[in-house]
């Protein structure tokens, strides 16, 4: 990383640290969305961007993480900082099952993606009928106004903002370290050509299993955060295919396999989403948002197929090629 890039990064970080003082409630809630999508995008990017494995079922891990932590809290009073271990453990187990079935039996590309969708779907149906988790009626966390209890993740927007900011920064640092390690390079090799990778000694199955479990663990954390931020969970939304697709958009738009791509993609997508919501409201046309949003995605994917970030990075003289 050159000094210009480092300076840019520090300015960005300073802005993010000070944001609750600088922005109003609306601005902060938008920024929370940006950081959330940057974070889950970063987690998903480990599988697709680094190891080249297309998962379209990441809502599974977020949903499981959220349900486990929220369930332990509502049923047994176990706080989220403890519950998160169980949440991550459950999501890692789910990731290991999906990964082993897919990778051991060499399901590749779209077939693996179909498997990930299938797991999300039947988990959704399972939760619909599971009374402990509230069934299709959902699970609700007790809302306490005016408290700020970090130990139990009960509090206002500012607290959740700093938690998701810490998670996004942590995921970025982790991904950078992974990419600059043997495991990271092995992932890239698998993404490019698994057979050639195995011939130079890469234990392909093991590396793919690590990709899916690390990605699932990080995604589960997002699920926990999400459950405690919104205070409710429904199988129909937590495990929805749409939720999974949403997680893939930031890294795809921002730049697959890059470290800043998920963040840049999240900024652009959330920004466009808010803009088009405003437009829809102004012109009183329902669905205008979706049409413009879809068109914007289409244009970005057509003109910057490698993502927005690699293009910006070269213009600014930063060096982050798709590795």
């Amino acid at each position, binding site marked *: 990383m050159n000094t210009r890039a480092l300076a840019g990064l520090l300015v960005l970080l300073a802005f993010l640290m000070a944001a609750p003082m600088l922005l109003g409630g609306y601005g902060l809630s938008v920024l929370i969305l940006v950081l959330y999508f940057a974070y889950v995008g970063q987690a998903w990017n480990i599988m697709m961007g680094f190891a080249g494995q297309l998962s379209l079922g990441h809502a599974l891990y977020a949903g499981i993480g959220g349900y486990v932590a929220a369930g332990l809290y509502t049923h047994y009073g176990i706080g989220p900082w403890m519950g998160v271990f169980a949440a991550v453990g459950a999501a890692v187990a789910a990731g290991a099952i999906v990964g082993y079935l897919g990778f051991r039996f060499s399901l590749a590309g779209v077939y693996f993606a179909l498997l990930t969708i299938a797991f999300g779907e039947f988990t959704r149906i399972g939760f619909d009928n599971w009374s402990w988790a509230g069934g299709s009626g959902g699970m609700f966390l007790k809302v306490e106004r005016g408290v700020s209890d970090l130990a139990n993740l009960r509090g206002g927007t500012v607290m959740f903002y700093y938690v998701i900011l810490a998670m996004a920064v942590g995921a970025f640092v982790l991904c950078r370290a992974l990419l600059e*390690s*043997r495991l990271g390079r092995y992932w890239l*090799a698998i*993404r*490019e*050509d698994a057979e050639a990778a195995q011939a*130079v000694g*890469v*234990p392909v199955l093991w590396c793919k299993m690590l990709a899916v479990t690390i990605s699932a663990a990080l995604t589960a954390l997002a699920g926990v955060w999400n459950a405690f931020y919104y205070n409710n969970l429904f199988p129909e939304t937590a495990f929805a295919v749409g939720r999974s697709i949403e997680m893939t958009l930031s890294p795809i738009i921002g730049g697959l396999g890059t470290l800043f791509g998920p963040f840049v993609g999240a900024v652009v997508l959330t920004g466009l989403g808010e803009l088009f919501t405003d437009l829809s409201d102004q012109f009183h046309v329902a669905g205008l948002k979706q049409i413009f949003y879809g068109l914007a995605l289409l244009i970005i994917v057509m003109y910057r197929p490698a993502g927005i970030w690699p293009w910006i990075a070269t213009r600014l003289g930063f060096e982050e090629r798709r*590795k």
Partner: protein
Amino acid sequence: MSGARLELAGLGKTFRGLRAVHDVSFAVPAGAIHALIGPNGAGKTTIFNMIAGVYAPTAGTVTLDGRSIAGLRPDRVCDAGVGRTFQIVKPFKGLSVLENVTVGALHRRPRLGPAREHAEAILARLGLHDRRHQLAENLTLPDRKRLEVARALATEPKLLLLDEVMAGLRPTEVDVMVAFLRGLSAETGLTILLIEHVMRAVMALAARVTVVSYGEKIAEGTPAEIARNQAVLDVYLGHEDPA
């Protein structure tokens, strides 16, 4: 780096009743250069794939310095000391030339820094050093062939399997590759088994040659003996186009 003795005994492979390789036996002493030749479809690459762990043999054994490697996974075979190239080159296209070779070097050097240094040294030897920051997908075919060799060498093998690395090279480029391999063999004592159609390279490099046809071994000997062998001439070398 030093060579290992490779021995194939009674090696066979059947694909759903189709006999691709049958009862092939030969040995390559440590440090020797051995060529495997034969017409297209004779089963040469299948034999390679059985040594490299892509296929488990349906019959026979493969041993490296007396240790059985048949049926191991490709990455385990690499651990055991076998490096291979692919006939249809398989570069990591989206990675730079240096990163391609670094992945190989990481096999015995788990840290990125030392692995990269090792990769640079190998690239320098193969004349690819000035292209190390290019993406592999932008290399010409001869350079991609050299990259295959560099990446396999980076894993520090005791046995190097080269699958038609001369194909598509110009005669002068063949001579460069031959000189490189001969130097490598002399310097490191690495054992080399090569599949090759370029006879100029086989004659210049190999101490011994094994000939296969329709999945079976039909001859073995020095290049000069093979060039005179009637069975070989019949199936492989002797077919001159009358027109």
